[in-house]
């Protein structure tokens, strides 16, 4: 994915890019391309930080992605929106775990455990 200046993008454009990253990570998982997965993880973090920086914390724009058909997009959105929509984000993580949508279910379970233990790095 080409690196762009995220500060120049609108919120819908950032959400679109966030979605594309998740789908790319899902594809990387499928093909066992861990390096690609990790590169896209870094881009997800960049987009998250840009959304959080916008007035009013625009990470709430990720909430509609809780219903996205791609499990990696749902995981990323739920983890990154935990601070702004904790109940709905937690429910989205729980769905990933309940449906056993691995490998995303493992990450979702770990985030749920961290929330319960009060050790989450995402809130």
């Amino acid at each position, binding site marked *: 994915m080409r690196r762009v200046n995220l500060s120049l993008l609108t919120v819908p454009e950032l959400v679109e890019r966030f979605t594309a990253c998740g789908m790319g990570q*899902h*594809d990387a*998982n*499928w*093909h*066992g*391309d*861990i390096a690609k*997965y*990790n590169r896209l*993880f*870094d881009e997800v*973090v960049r987009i998250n930080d840009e959304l959080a920086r916008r007035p009013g914390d625009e990470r709430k724009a990720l909430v509609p992605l809780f219903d996205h*058909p*791609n499990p990696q997009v749902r995981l990323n959105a739920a*983890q*990154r929106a935990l601070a702004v929509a904790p109940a709905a984000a937690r429910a989205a993580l729980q769905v990933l775990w309940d*449906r*056993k*949508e*691995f*490998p995303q*279910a*493992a*990450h979702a*379970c*770990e*985030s749920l*455990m*961290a929330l319960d233990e009060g050790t*989450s*790095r*995402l809130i």
Partner: protein
Amino acid sequence: MAAPADAARARLRAERTEVPGRGDAAGPRHAAARAGAQVGYNPSQPRVPKGEDGAGEWTETDANGTPISKRPKGDRVRLAGDWPSNNPPEPLDDEPKNFTKEPATSAERTSVMKYIARRAVETGVSVAVIVGTARWLLLREAEIVSYNDPPASLDDLRKAVSTPAPGYDIHHIVERTSAEEQGFARAVINDPINLVRIPRLKHQEINAWYQTKNAEYGGLSPREYLSGRSWSVREAVGMRALRIHGVLKQ
């Protein structure tokens, strides 16, 4: 009459008993040659008819010897993507709907196997039916089935180490390679208390998890996070890995 999947498995078993194993007395080269003669080119094997998707490619037959592609659609072995009931999640566009052709890479083969295992749970359809006549998957049926094992106690996972079984691997709770690199003694790494028998596809999934960046580890991969850390921290992460992958009871 036997179901198509049963018949296909019976054929496979018959072939498998004839294919020499690693211990073949005549050596691996001769064994491979004989295996090739037994399962290789067969001019009478049917092909997909002209005008159909994949025309000209080798195809599989059902129990009656009819090419699968010639059977009425409603009579075919059910494949993921065809699910008619219970409102299951729709497959993503980039996921496979036909498993006959073996993927080129190990990672893709693993992904297809996990996909089938998950579909079996979601739909209540057995792995054997979903696999149908896909020979490469029939050979790996044990791996696919074991992926859906329910979580077990640590005691049971450790006890199972003494009884190796198809579809399972011996797994080090504290990762072996990185522990060796960090100077932990092999006697500690390979101690029975650090070993569990787990489903092979779960083993691979956990290995991948150790290498992928993780939001709960500050953006590091678990393996990066554990670099330079104590045995007890590694053990705690290793136990957590088993739990979050549904291998160890919560």
